[in-house]
């Protein structure tokens, strides 16, 4: 685990690019045990999570990452990631502020998202 921060950065870039361009493409990041908490609803498993993300009722979405931080998890192989930023949905003029926490765990030579906790944190 020499460079967890680099892994985290790669992950963040990939995650939000994919989210903003092709949500379906996120399915590979999750496993059957993965948990997504989107606002106050919880979804488990890659298929359901992907469905949830895809079904979010907006056409265009753009994440603007303002902060990112990461720490290696105890045991040395996982990573905890905290991201905050703004979310522009469709043509809505006011971006929404969000905070998102990920738990990334290794699998084979790569990582998957064990936990994904998303929250809007500012009154629109």
């Amino acid at each position: 685990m020499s460079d967890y921060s680099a892994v985290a950065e790669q992950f963040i870039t990939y995650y939000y690019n994919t989210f903003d361009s092709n949500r379906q493409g996120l399915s590979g990041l999750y496993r059957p045990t993965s948990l997504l908490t989107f606002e106050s609803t919880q979804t488990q498993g890659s298929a359901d999570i992907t469905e949830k993300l895809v079904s979010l009722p907006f056409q265009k979405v753009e994440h603007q990452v303002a902060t990112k931080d990461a720490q290696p998890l105890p045991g040395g192989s996982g990573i905890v990631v905290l991201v905050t930023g703004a979310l522009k949905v469709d043509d809505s003029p006011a971006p929404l502020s969000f905070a998102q926490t990920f738990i990334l765990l290794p699998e084979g030579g790569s990582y998957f998202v064990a936990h994904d906790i998303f929250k809007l944190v500012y009154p629109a």
Partner: protein
Amino acid sequence: MTGRSSLPANLGRNRAGGGIQKRRQSARLDREGDLDMSGQAPTGPRARPISGAKPRPARSNTAPGQKPETGPSKGFRPVRSNARHPVGTVNGIKQPAGGFIEMKVSGWKDLKATNSETILFLERRLKEKLRRVRPVGDNIMFQVPLVKVPTILEFDGIKFAGGNLRIQPVNELPASIQAAIKPTVDRSEEAQQLASLLKNVLQSRYVAASKMLDLSALGTHPQLQGSGFFDQDSTRAKMFPAMMKVADEQFTNRAEKRDSVVSVNLASNTLNDISMVASLAATFPELKNLSLENNNITTFKQLEPWRFKFRKLEQLLLTGNPITQLPNYREDCRKWWKSLIMLDNVYYPDPPPASKNDHSAGPGSFPPMPLMIQPSGVIDDQDHTNEFLSTFFPAFDTDRKLCVQTFYNNQSMFSISVNVSAPRLSGDTKHNIQKWDSYIPKSRNMVRLRNPTAIKDRCAKGPTAIQKIWDTLPRTFHDVTDPLKWNYDSKNISYEDTVGMLLTVHGEYEEPENVAMEGVASKRSFTRTFLVVPNGAGGYLVRRDMLLVRAYGGSSAWQAETLLPQPAAPQAAPEQAANAPPQQIAVLDPKEQMLQMIQQLMSQTGLTPKFAEMCLEQTGWDLAKAMQAFNEATDPVLGRCIIYPDGCFKQQNDNALFYINPDGLMDKLPNSAFVCTNNAIYTYQASVTTNNTTVGAGPEGGPQGVVEPEGFPTQTTGSTVVNVEPCVEITLEDAPY
């Protein structure tokens, strides 16, 4: 034992020995109160024979000149000869019409004052000499002329030696006297003003969202402060029972009380005991959360009236009272209130015994605890989460060194990042501060920080390194008592050898030493992610801690979830469909949907987020109805205001709120009213009211009121002037949402 020497200190023994009880007399002896003074056997047929009772000393001990009717009490009170009203009970003196009635006074027994002092005090205050004074059980019995009863009852609840004396008739009063009592109270203008005032205070202190009656620090409440209730103990002693009574009157039945008030906060009222508020247990017997924080309760005796009351009490706060120092304090509390789950924000290790009637009790299904952090996300392990959060943040605030030693070990990591681009809560310049000097040097935001060495260095590992960063950060205050300020998710997490909780917490804190504006402590919003594992000793170990600080953005982003019942999917109003871009109708989830509706209403009405949310809430999250309500609620007198079932909000640029006595506006507004003007009242927040304040507004175009130096708007340009009194300004935070 002589009448003179048998001083109050002996009372307890006397009671135990029954020597005084022996003289308990039936009313039959009223007119001949002296008869038994000789200490001979009771003469009345209804008098109880008490075995082993010793005859009282003969009256020959009475000092020369002493009025004979003091005889019965001479065992426990000094001889007096200066009673102002030598009630005509002595033989030969005419008796007052209606005869005498037996009264009793209680409430002194836990106090330091002796019986004789109590009686002397009473006589002084009542300006009435008490006949046949004697202790019976926990009471002092005495007799007074019937005609004096109404006067004497006015002193019921009088403050004495740190407690309140309960003065009651022993038997039911004759109807004639009852009639004399009731009108006296009702007619009293003062009493009505008092009731009205207390009702106002209650309404302003009711937090609907958490169903909490916040009666904390009433001494500083602007309305009460001006009223003189806290000027002296005696008036204060009246205020609390009156407040309890008014509170009781707000509800028609027990279910209504239970559904409306879950928590009561009596913190910081300098209570020495709870006698003044004892009736709370009768009014809200099913209370779940109770705070007596920062009072002066030293022993369980002072809580006695509530012993075994509040049978559903789950959370009690007594921190800041000397009683918490008693040995076995926690155990004893649990004995008195068996349903307690948590005391002073610390859980009892074992759940309370299951109650047959209470389905909500029991581990795993803890009810909401409005006095502390309240979850609104997904919570896997409620009790551990609550316990950790409610112990961690106070520790972090008060003693970071201790905090790091308690919760962190050599493997623990901490890092902080700052989001300087997050929006501030619009309109709130008071708390907001956009200076980040004290945070930036430690910020590990990898969007900005590109140097790998710096990235590595700014992740602190181990207590020493963590403490070093913490030392550079401003002091903080996280209010764990206000559930509305918090939101968190808690996940059980397990991988490899690690089993613990993943917590993401969203909230706010103050920086007590950092002043934003107007002397108000600045606020920040934060998100903090913890990985917490058991420390092996019953506590918690923070393995990972990531703190994100941003500008203060308020908490309404998640209040929508906690406050609102899950709304029916909002109907897109026709107007909305016509006016809004189509893609905005298709919104995210209900929460997101609501946020967007709030935004739309804001843009169409100029309402602030909070008020827009309230308006939507009141109209069932129907934007069209909300708009309609907004327009229709424009009051011709007060200008633009939105009237809610329980009050009125007039919103103007979020600058100020006025609480208006409902009496003054009964014709115009239902019940209570909140009015917000567009003047710079902000600086007068929480100022004290004056009477006869005039609030008015032009009939068209909203209020053009002027803020007077006292902080009250007056308006004379309009055709109608509404007289309002009293008018108290309250802060946004005080508003009941």
